């Protein structure tokens, strides 16, 4: 069976240097291969600058790679839609951004944030919009939804905002969710709530999740498989238990040593409060 998402030889270069070094390029993502299966949670782990957020943007089609194939259901979308993602692709692949304070537009209500994707992807229109918005808010644990729908983002905490961002990503009913460091900007006390919500989405709706993180503890809590990224290359990949308990690559060992709590056998302390 073909995997939902398959990435082959994905390469992204950026121009580097100023006027003196014109023409110099830096390869940020270097021939990366991986797959994400249906209803699978794959964590992409690496330090700052390892290229993990660039990979997220490439798969979300916010940037275009220099080389490689990006296959959804076995079909290379970069060949089929070279000039930018189609709406059909957007419907199937959605993204949650790192900074919930930046990813919601301060001038619009929460209802607006959710109505637009519902309308754009034909999930609801007209009189169905309100109940659909309320259902989404309730699904991410923001209740009573009628009250939240009328609020502006500034009235919410970071954790609540991230829940709205997740609801927005869910609105088109995607098959793959890219979560770019979804908890790194949140207080430690509310991270678990957001992570548990993501896992619940996989368990109840069969959504695949590509989790981008520098935090091995959350990768370990959530992921079925872990890919370790360093300098734009995948240096180690395998099931979560294997990576955490028997790391092979020295870089992985360094990451593990640097992460408090990542190697403990018990799951990290949980707190569901926002």
């Amino acid at each position: 069976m073909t995997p939902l998402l398959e990435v082959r030889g994905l390469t992204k270069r950026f121009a580097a240097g100023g006027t003196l070094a014109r023409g110099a390029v830096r390869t940020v993502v270097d021939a990366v291969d991986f797959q994400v299966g249906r209803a699978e949670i794959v964590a992409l782990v690496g330090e700052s600058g390892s290229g993990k957020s660039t990979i997220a943007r490439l798969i979300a089609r916010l940037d275009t790679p220099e080389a490689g194939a990006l296959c959804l259901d076995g079909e290379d979308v970069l060949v089929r839609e070279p000039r930018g993602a189609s709406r059909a692709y957007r419907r199937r692949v959605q993204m949650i951004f790192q900074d919930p304070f930046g990813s919601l537009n301060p001038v619009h209500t929460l209802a607006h944030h959710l109505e637009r994707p519902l309308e754009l992807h034909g999930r609801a229109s007209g009189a169905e919009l309100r109940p659909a918005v309320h259902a989404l808010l309730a699904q991410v644990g923001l209740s009573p939804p009628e009250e939240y729908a009328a609020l502006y983002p500034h009235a919410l905490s970071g954790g609540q905002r991230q829940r709205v961002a997740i609801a927005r990503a869910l609105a088109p009913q995607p098959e793959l969710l890219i979560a770019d460091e979804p908890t790194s900007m949140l207080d430690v006390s509310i991270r678990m709530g957001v992570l548990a919500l993501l896992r619940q989405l996989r368990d109840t709706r069969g959504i695949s999740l590509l989790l981008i993180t520098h935090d091995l503890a959350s990768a370990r809590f959530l992921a079925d498989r872990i890919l370790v990224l360093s300098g734009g290359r995948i240096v180690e990949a395998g099931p979560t238990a294997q990576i955490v308990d028997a790391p092979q690559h020295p870089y992985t060992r360094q990451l593990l040593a640097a992460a408090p709590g990542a190697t403990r056998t018990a799951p990290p302390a949980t707190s569901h409060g926002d």
Partner: protein
Amino acid sequence: MRAGAALVASALGRSGPARVGAGLLFFFVLVALVGPLLVADPTEMLARPLLPPGADHWFGTTGQGQDVLAQTVVGTRMSLFVGLATGLLVTALGALVGVTAGYFGGRVDDALSLLVNVFLVLPGLPLAIVLAAWLPPGPLSIVAVLTLTGWAWTARVLRAQTLSLRHKDFVAAAVVSGEGHARIMLREILPNMTSLWVSCAVGTATYAIGASVGLEFLGLGDVSRVTWGTNLYWATNDAALLTGSWWTFVPTGLCLALVGFGLTLLNYGLDELTNPRLGVDRAWRRALKAAGRTPGDSTPYLPPAEGGR
């Protein structure tokens, strides 16, 4: 537009100067709308020329024996119309070019920025004079001339702000949602710089009223119409200074100054609203004064207010 109206309303609620400015503007808009129905025909010869202000003709008469009050009131309509229409057109054109350039970046930005820069280096007033002389005289020509020579600054300012907004995550999130470019610019980016384009519109209107009066004063408008500019044109033509008939130009000049004053006060109010530091500064100075301190003393300490906060 809705966001702009909300911003203006909010500025009025908080800022005293803005309320004064809005009051002045409201008065002149009222004069422009209903005034012409209440006064005599401004083009007819009603009395002896150059009568000083008196009971029959409150503001006196012109060199042609026309009523100055009537001329001032009727002139308000066209001058305000030119100012507001130019403000709106310049803002619309500037937003279209500036936001498009900033949003798309790359070659689109290069091409549009080149266009903006060309219009910025063209000397505005001489070009306006040449164009106004060449186009058929009339208020619409004046609006066209002032829009053409004035839109580039607005475009430049809005482009700069768009450049900083387009890399925000909420824009990327809208792209991922499948939102189209036009809608992202109009609904996601523009409402985030409402204060900027509203103050551009108000500033441009101020400039346009002054510049239209200037062009008409030079005789580049339609001199058969009654506007503030043509009032001044005829006053000079009739040698107002030579004959000492100050009443033929002072009312119009005063109205012009008051409208400009009102628009500027409104802009200050908007500025204070979007830059709260200005308001904080003033409140701090007031608090210092109440405590008998002068600003600039070292380490001002104010005792806590009664009951504590």
